[in-house]
């Protein structure tokens, strides 16, 4: 089982930039990308079918068709995305959208464009750790992409089986 991260972003250069900044995670993390919501749903289906877990979504708001915020709201009740962390990466969400994302989708973080690579990596590591803790996933196979200190604290509770 791999942890998966989904980048939902319609502009190709932005997707590429996000992927490049997260390249350090790629060995231990399934990084998927989608340019619109229908593609994102297909990707989620693929992740689920492969037995992997969608740990984190980095979504832009302004997309062709369904908006990023509406996608995240739907995702909040999707069983395939249980405990999935939701991050809005956008420069264009207005206040109403942002409020809806927080109240209705349970948005976890908001990243304003442009981001800095180090801060993004730290955010991803932090959010992946939150996912592992909330979803009850065994952190050990994924330790390389997690905040080791927090992840190990739940391993310690396991006891000497």
């Amino acid at each position, binding site marked *: 089982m791999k942890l998966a991260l989904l980048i939902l972003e319609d502009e190709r250069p932005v997707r590429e930039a996000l992927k490049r900044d997260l390249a350090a995670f790629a060995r231990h993390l399934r990084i998927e990308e989608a340019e619109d919501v229908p593609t994102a749903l297909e990707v989620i289906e693929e992740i689920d079918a492969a*037995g992997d877990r969608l740990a984190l979504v980095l979504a832009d708001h302004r997309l062709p068709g369904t908006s990023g915020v509406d996608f995240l709201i739907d*995702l*909040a*009740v*999707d*069983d*395939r*995305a*249980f*405990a*999935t962390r939701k991050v809005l990466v956008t420069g264009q969400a207005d206040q109403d959208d942002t409020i809806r994302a927080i*109240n*209705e*989708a*349970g948005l976890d973080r908001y990243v304003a464009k442009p981001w800095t690579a180090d801060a993004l990596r730290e955010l991803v590591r932090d959010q992946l750790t939150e996912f592992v803790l909330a*979803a*009850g996933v065994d*952190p*050990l*196979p994924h*330790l*390389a992409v997690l905040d*080791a*200190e927090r992840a*190990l*604290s739940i*391993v*310690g*509770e*396991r*006891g*000497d*089986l």
Partner: protein
Amino acid sequence: MSTATARPRVNLPRLTLVQRLGLLLGLIAFLVPLLIEIPSLEPAGRRMLAIFLLAILFWVSEAIPLYATAVLVILLEVLMLSDQALVGVAGTLPPAASYFAALANPVIILFLGGFLIADGARKFGLDRSLAAVMLRPFAGNARLSLLGLMMITALLSMFVSNTATTATMFAVVIPILAALPKGRARTGVALAIPVAANVGGIGTPVGSPPNAIALGALEASGQGISFIGWMLLAVPLMVVVLLFAWWFLTRRYIAAETPLALELSADFDRSPAAVIFYLIAGATILLWLTEPFHGIASSTVGFLPVVALLATQVMGADDIKRLQWPVLWLVAGGIALGAGIGASGLDLWLIGLVAWEALPLTLLLLLLVGVSVGLSTVISHSAAANLLVPLTLSLAIGLPIDPTAVGVMVALACALGMALPISTPPNAIAYATGEVPTSEMIVSGVVIGGFGALLLALVMPSLWTALGLL
């Protein structure tokens, strides 16, 4: 929060080939003794043999979770070997309650106390603060720091589970690791922690589950050992193996004069709740160590912190829920298995199988320790002890050696199986950090575990006898 949320899905795990084979062979092995007449084995013994074979295959293959096999053993004993057996047999069978009672065996109560103290230590950050304070004198030189690190890890592991100790120590050490040059020095440090945690676990009865399993079985046969009595038997071996491990790991991985900066801040919680916890934990450990003076059994002492911590509300219902129940159930399953083997007469039949007394005692002890180390390398230490302790205690009846020595030796040997990432949870944690290649874990595990095993089989029994400990 009014946000709608997704429901967690319970995904059943896909069984591996080994698990499927284990399931199938376990069921066959269970049926064979029931269907085939075995000469010189009474019907009760045949039923117990069926349960024992099933337990072996399930624990070795992990066809179902270890704790599930443990409760299955208890259920099968109740259904087949108790006064509530579905089909009766000639002779009287023990009451069903005696099998269920394994879940409240004094050893389980002892562990309950140990667990609560360990959980409290983590809750109040005592483990990390102690580690930080005790590491300070060793700062500067990497080889010396490693000795300090291993001693502290072992000391914590004597009272806290090996897994929790390893997790805590890695949390302390990961920043230190990052300061070391990538490569061998890091591997050495990352190997030292699980080794010290595994070896430290043998130091006290509450250090790791195999100790409890051996203690429970010995108590059932009227050969109980006090807390301090166990320590006298185990700590000398622990110290020597630790020193050897330090020598081996530093020579192999850490160049002399490697600098190592340790900047650890101790942050002792001084809130009233924490202070009450320190007092209760300290008093408990003191009472454990002084049993010869006051005579209160270690299990009774172990129940004191349970009562005191809950009554003072230093710990509460959530802390009870967080206790490692799977471990307690696994130990209980082992105790019930041992009880069933004794009650059914299977032990006597097992002794008769091989003329053990014809073999030289030294060879037998080497064999005993070798099998224990080997089995616990590939399966859970607790499961290995569950299988081997009752078996070897049965065999010890006919041998010219104290059964206590045999029980303790098996438990200690089970701690020495640490050559693979799957051998123990501490190894799995070290492997997960990415600093330890499997090949290096095999080398260090075989060398250190092998050294400990030889010492245990060849030196310890005579030492114990010479010191008058048995």
